[in-house]
Structure formats: C-alpha cells, structure tokens
C-alpha cells in the first residue's frame, strides 16, 4: 500500500471528531470520555486521526511540506486504535489506523522521523544483523532451567515467543517464567527457538523493510520446524504475528495458530487442565492492552477495489473484512480473573474496545517518554477511581508503563499510591499454587 491509497479516506473524512473520543454510547463521565492520547497531548486538530488524514492529504496535494510539527503529529501517537473503533461506529469506508501507519511509513521513506527514532532503529538493525549487544542466546537467558525444548529438534505442543521486553527486562523475568511454568503445569511441552525481535516495533515506527526482514526470518523458522501453535505473552508481538506477518511478501496462507498466553491459559483452565483453587483476595481492575483487545481480533488481509452500488454508495470488491474492535480478546482475561477465587473485578469506565491506552504503544515509550508517561498517568488515575487494589493487564509494555506511573503518582501523593500492578497470569499462578506471591 501507499499513502495515496488512503486519499479517499481523507477526502471522505468529515471532521466529525469522533476519533477524539471513546464511542459516545459508552461515555459515562466528563473526565473519562476522551479517547485519543495523541490529541490530548498535541491539542491541535492535526493530532487526531482525522487531522492526521488531512495532514497526509495536504502533503499529497502539495499544499504543505513536512515540518517538524508534521513529524510530531505523525509519530507522537501510540497507534492505539481508539480512533479506528470510534470512526467505525458509523463508517464502513474508512480505515484510520491503516492510514496512520501508512503516513509513518511514508515519512520514514523520506527519512523525516523524530530524532529519537534514529538510535532506536539503529539498535534494531544491528540486532537483525546479529551485531546487537544481545545475541539470540542471550535473549533466551530468561528461560534457563525451565526445560524448554528446541522445536527445530523435537516436536512440541506450543512454541513460546517471549518478545523483547520479557526477554530482556530483568523486572519482568519472573512474570514470563511463571507463564511458561503454567503451561507446563497443564501438561504442555513448550518449545523455544533462538531468535530475535519479531519486528513489531520497527513496523510501528514505520520501518517496513526491517519489520519484513524480521518477519521473514521468523516465518521461515516456523515453517522449517512445522510449528502448529505459537504462544506469546506479549500483546505487541501477537499483534505483529497476526496483523503484520500475513501481509508480508511470501507469507504462507496458513500461519501457525497465534495465541496470547491469556488465551491459551484460559483454554487450559476451561479444559480442566489447570485448577485455580488458592484464594487470591484482591480487588482488581483490568486494562485491555490495545494490541490484544481492539486490535487483537481475527484479521484478514484484504486486497481489492472500491466499487459503487445504489449510484454512489461505497463498497468493496471483494467485500472488505470488518475490523472494528468488536471481537478482540476481551473475554479470556476476564474469564481467568473470574475463575480465581477471591478476585473481584471492577471495570474502568474505558474498557474493552474503549480502553485508554497505557501510553507505551507505537514506540512512544521509547521515543516520547514524557508523553508516554503522561498517557499512563491518566490510565492509572482511572484505575484508582475504581477503588481497585491492583491494576492488572496482559502486556509487558503496559505493565512497565503502569508500574512507573504508579510510582510517580505515589511520589506526588496521588490517588494511585499503593496500587499494585500485576499480570493476569501472575494471579493465575498464585491461585494454582505455582507461586506464593506476585512480583
């Protein structure tokens, strides 16, 4: 695709501003009605999805040029997908999130990126070339002693892919190890390849070639070993596997089944292969990671053309699949929490498809740390407003951002002081008796 492929989206944008809010039917308060972190930080209309579309149109029309402000508009955005959900409340002919990603790729091609991107992408390139500070073997150090198999050598039930954060962040080590041990407790044989980054971060930054290179490597590894199921604890990696890889050149028609660990663990609990018996007396609120929730629904790559019916009504040939956030992974984590004796779930106002982003997505944690932190702070405030003792999620990036936001809030005497931050599966592990306390 090219930016010009989204020209019609821009021309048909009506500047209704739905993209700035959560779906209106779900608004429950003044405070938590807003849905787009980008415009809340950037303030000018350009920072909304509609504004980004028109920014792109203005560039395409030659009415304006790429400035530092345009770069900021395009990249200071988590690609969280709220805009996509809200727009599709009413529209069938718009693909805001795809257009936003295309704008980034376009600017990357022009080498007009935030300065903070340059060291980031250099690190990714070095890692792809095997020249990074962490070798694939280093990345697997977290799994030491877990008895994971090499899927290239022996058959396994599932291949585990930890992702960069879980592989490399010391503070997440126990969380990821626990997730593997849960699978093993349920009787699954778990495999682990030596490999690198999935390419997801590069893709979100707009560096398509680097993402494709990482994807091709991963897909070959899976194909060579005849992998049937890949499970990852990282919502971003799952998103990359399910939304980016199918569109790569040479991607097989049938990818392995891709699951997040909460999906698989939920299945195992429902199949009776994991028993949750130990009470975990805790009031929690659950944060839907954007890439597991509204952007985690089954995805089909579409190629086709626009056509008109009834004179001018816009449809597509073949029909374009509907990806509007309605069918994300919402039930599995909630069902798991409901299955844990003692856990009480209280929902935040903005949940499921209307979730306020944790702030980390779209490379913002790395490239725009202040903006990322401010976005997380708002979510932590919302979590605190529920009265929950713990903010629970299912994504390493969310959890890192939240932990830092809670600490910052506590330091300033804010309402989130003392709030715990957990991964859903840590609580599951407590209830199985696999662990005695959460990290």
């Amino acid at each position, binding site marked *: 695709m090219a930016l010009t492929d989204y*020209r*019609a989206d821009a*021309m*048909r*944008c*009506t*500047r*209704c*501003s*739905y993209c700035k*809010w959560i*779906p*209106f*039917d*779900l*608004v*429950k*308060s*003044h405070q938590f*009605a807003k849905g787009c972190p980008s415009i809340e930080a950037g*303030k*000018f*209309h*350009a920072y909304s999805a509609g*504004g980004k579309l*028109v*920014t792109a*149109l*203005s560039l395409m*029309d*030659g*009415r*304006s*040029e790429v*400035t530092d*402000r*345009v770069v900021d*508009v395009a990249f200071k955005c988590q690609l969280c997908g709220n805009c996509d*959900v809200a727009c*599709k*409340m*009413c*529209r*069938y*002919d718009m693909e805001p999130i795809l257009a936003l990603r295309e704008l980034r790729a376009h600017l990357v091609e022009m080498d007009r990126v935030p300065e903070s991107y340059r060291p980031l992408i250099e690190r990714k390139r070095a890692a792809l070339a095997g020249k990074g500070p962490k070798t694939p073997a280093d990345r697997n150090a977290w799994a030491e002693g877990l008895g994971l198999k090499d899927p290239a050598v022996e058959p396994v039930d599932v291949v585990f892919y930890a992702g960069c954060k879980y592989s490399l962040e010391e503070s997440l080590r126990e969380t990821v190890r626990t997730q593997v041990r849960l699978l093993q407790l349920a009787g699954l044989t778990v495999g682990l390849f030596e490999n690198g980054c999935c390419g997801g971060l590069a893709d979100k930054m707009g560096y398509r070639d680097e993402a494709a290179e990482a994807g091709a490597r991963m897909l070959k590894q899976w194909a060579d070993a005849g992998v049937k199921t890949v499970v990852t604890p990282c919502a971003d990696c799952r998103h990359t596997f399910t939304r980016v890889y199918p569109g790569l050149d040479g991607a097989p028609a049938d990818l392995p089944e891709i699951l997040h660990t909460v999906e698989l663990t939920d299945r195992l609990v429902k199949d009776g292969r994991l028993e949750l018996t130990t009470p975990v007396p805790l009031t929690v609120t659950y944060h839907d990671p954007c890439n597991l929730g509204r952007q985690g629904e089954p995805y089909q790559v579409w190629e086709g053309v626009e056509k*008109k*019916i*009834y*004179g*001018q*009504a*816009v*449809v*597509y040939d073949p*029909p*374009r699949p*509907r990806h*509007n*956030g*309605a069918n994300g992974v919402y039930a599995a984590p909630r069902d798991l929490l409901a299955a844990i004796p003692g856990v009480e779930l209280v929902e935040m106002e903005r949940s499921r498809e209307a979730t306020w982003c944790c702030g980390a997505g779209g490379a913002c944690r790395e490239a725009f740390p202040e903006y990322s932190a401010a976005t997380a702070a708002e979510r932590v405030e919302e979590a605190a407003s529920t009265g929950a003792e713990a903010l629970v999620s299912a994504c390493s990036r969310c959890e890192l951002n939240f932990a830092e936001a809670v600490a910052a809030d506590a330091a300033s005497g804010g309402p989130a002081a003392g709030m715990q931050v957990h991964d859903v599966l840590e609580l599951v592990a407590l209830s199985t008796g696999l662990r005695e306390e959460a990290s």
Partner: protein
Amino acid sequence: MNPSYAKPTTPAAMATQSAQLSEEAYRALEDIVGAANVSRDAAVLDTYAFQWLAELVRPDQSHYMPRPAAVVLPGSTEEVQAIVRLANKYGLKVKPHGTGWYHWSGPIKDEDATLQLDMRRMDAIVEIDEQNMYAVVEPYVIAAQLQAEILPLGLNLNIPGVGCSSSIVASACAYHGAGPDTYYMGGNAENVLGMEWVTPEGEIIRTGSLGSGDGWFCSEGPGPSVRGICRGTLGSRGGLGVYTKCAVKLAPHFGQTEWNVEGTLPAYRLPVHENLRVYTLAVADWDAWAEIYYKIYDNEIGYIFHRQFNLAGADLSPAFWLMHNDASKTLSDVPEFVADPKIAELTEELRISFQLILAGRSRDDIELQDKILEAILDEVGGWKVERFCEQDMAEFTNVYLQRLGHKHINFVWAGGYIGSWMQFGTPDWVKGYVPTAAAGLERDAAAGKLVQCGGDAMMGSGSGIPLGGATGLEQFVSYDPDDYESTVAGIMHMEDAVKDAASISYPPGKEFLYLQIGWTDEQIWDALAHAKQPQAFHYQRQIKEAFDPNDIGDRMYPTLPEGYEAGS
C-alpha cells in the same frame, strides 16, 4: 453538467495562500496563550481549513475553506479577551469554533487574515445545579459528557440533531439546537440561560441573571438580556464575538440513572427501563403523518420524538439498519438484505415511519401514555412496526436516540451528505413540501451521481412542545466527496432544491444556507434584501457597528450595508 462546474485540470493544490499575520502579531499571540497553543504550520492550518461541505461551495470544489492565518487555543476567558483585543489592534478576523464541524466554522474569505480559535482547552463543566436544574459549561464540553454527568442525578439535556459530539455552548449560544428530545425539552436556543460573552471589541458581558450577580438561572435578567442580539433561530455562528461559558436548562430524566450499555459495536443497546417505551411507528400516508404528529403534540405524551432511521432512505432504511445491527456485516451486504422478501415487506411497512420514546414518571403514567398512544394509532390508522419494536431494535433505538452518538452515520453511504429542505413549521405545512422534496431527490439521483436510496430520505424532530408543535424534515442527500461528478451533482441538487421550494411557494431550506458560504458579499446582500423583512438585516448592521466597529467577526452574522435595498 453545468459548465461552471467543469472539472479542474490542476490537482487540489489551489488556493493555499491565505492572508498572513505579521510576525509581531504572532509573537503577541504567543505571549497571550503560550507558544505551545498557537500554530501557523501549514499542515496544521489545513486541518482546520478542511471542512465537510467546503467542496460544495469553494472554487474548483476544493475541500478546504480558506486557510486560517493561525490557529489559537485559548485556555480562559481572559485569554479570549486578549486575543480579541489583539485582533482589533492588528486588523484580524476572529473565528471561534467548539468542535468545528461545518464549513462555516472555518474562515470564510481568502482575503481575510483569520485567527481560528479552537476552544478545546476550555472544557470544564463549571457547575451542575441539581436543584435548579441547570448546568454551566465551557465551550469544549460536549453533550455526551454533560449527559453522562447528569443522568445519575435524574436529569437530562437536549442534545441537538448534530449529535452528542457537539459543543453545548456552540448550539446554545451561536447556532441551532433542535434534536430528538427537543420535543420534550426544547431546543438549546430556548434552553440557554446566562451566557458569558466576549464581544468583538473584547468586553466581557455576562448576561441575564449572571449580569446582576444572581447566578446563571435566567437569560433575561435581572441583568442585561442580549438574546435578541445574539440568538434568534440560527445564532451568530461564530460571527459576533466568542461565547466562553453558558448555562443550559436541564430536564428531568425518567430512565435508568446508571448508563449500562450492552451489546456489540457498532450497535450498542440500552435496556429499556420499565418507565420507558421505545417504538417505531408508521402510518399509511402523509395526511395521517401530520395527524399523528398533531395528536402526539396535543396529548403531550412522549419524551423523544424523531423521524430518525429514514435518513438512510425509505427504499434502503430497514436493510441498512438491520445490517448495521450485525457487527460482522458491511455495506456490501445491504443488497442481500434488500433482496430478502421479509425485508422488502418491512420496507413498505416502514415507508412513513418515525420513532417515539415514551417516558413516565411512574408505572401508572407510562401505562396511561401507552393507552393514549394506542388510541391515537387507532384514530389515524397507524401501527407499531413490530420488527423495529422487538427487543434488539428497541434497545438500539433507545441508546441511539437518548445519546445521539451515531450522528456520523449521516455520512454512511458515501462520505458526504447534504441536508436539504428542513423548513420548520406545522405538520400540515411540512407535509406540503414532502412530495416535491421526494420527487426532487429521485430526479437528481436518477443519473447515479447521488446515492439512490429512495426519494424520501427525510429526517427530523417531532412536533416540539416548547416550539408550539413545529416540526421539520431534512432531506438526506448522499454524495461522494471523493468523486468530482458526485460532488457536482450535490451542488446541482442544492440549486434544484431552492428552485423546487420556490415552485411550490416555500422558502428555501437548509441548502440555501450551505450555498451562501460560497457566495460573494453582493450575492448575499441581494438574497437578504429579498427576504420578507430585510430591515432586520439593517438592524443587525447597527448592532454589528455597535459591538464590532473594527469588523473582526465574519459575515456569519448577516447584515445589509446602509441604504441597501433589493435591486441595489
């Protein structure tokens, strides 16, 4: 095709140059609001110039209104005041907008150096007075936000037809504000109480009871009333100063105070409270339509009264809405729905239909209203449309009309829509233009350049109790703004609708307002001079001269030059 709308040979890069402001003025703006809250980046400015409907009135059918000289985000009334004074000093225009939806919310003339005021930083609910049933809000508070806060208090507000995404201050102080619940609650033009107004000279005027220090409860006093200056049916639409706060009257709410919406995107559902009834009703002909509107009004039953779903067009409406209620379906599936014999039958059943939500203060009250409605239906030969009254559609209708959070669906067919007709009056008078409006759309859509969804794609509020029973029907004309010929067909339709209305001795409708945005001053003066009472626009000139001597407001506040008469 009209040769004046020949397709431009150059791409849409035209008319990018707008009047500039001086470096000195820009720095002064930065001093007022901070550098982070003002921009003159070309792309940022284009996101304000780009407006729905622009392509229908701008040269070469450009999607852009004139580019503002700068966009400014004031954070307080005092900052607004300072900006306005600066505009007076440097000879700039000021155009404020709340959420900024419509071509007239942008600058109007290329030759004007216009400061676009985006009011989004002023987004506080200042006060909710539960006892006295009003709320005070800043310009970027949208209706959905205030409604969410007041429903738990057993209160509600009129949400104008533009939807809950709209600024309350904008509709109450500066534009039109009727919607589905106007029937019971009144429009925002009626509901506005005290206002805080930064005049074009930079004075801060607090109106009505607010002006005497007695709070926000009354628009007329004790204290100065400026309703006659600021309001009227359409308001000044950004052309006469900046409204920085206002109070709106609230209404009682009879449904559940906890807003627990269920269902799946995009068709969420709100369970129907035991004190509510949610109906889609239909009648056999337009005489019966007028009759039932009168009877509902006369009997004062009901809470929300609107002809809503017909916006998708009488030929396609049932198929569209049932498709929309299936999260897996898209517009590509509509033909399949249309081909279903049951839906074909439903289409006929729904041809002249509307939605009515009854709300009772008690079970007895709602049961009484139900009986009255049954009697009315008997008298006019109307019926409840069973499929649309079933639980799924009733719950969808309930959330749709109570929250009005789907208004962007106006654009669903092709990305562009024109509201034509919409002359407001008694039901008998409104039904008088229905055949002409329907025939006009059939005719204009015949060539396939407009969406062909039936000649009657008319939608509008029921006979408002506070409005003396007035109603209106807006014809939804869908065009593709990405298709030049379709856009031109939209323009042709607007021009045709003006002529069609004249042919049956009706005044021009909403399309006339749209078209005027692209006119020259002389064309507008000529039209105003031919109005029934042109002297009103001479009075307005005197008001403008008094409040806006340096002409910082644009012509959205309509006036006639001194001595101007028809044929001048």
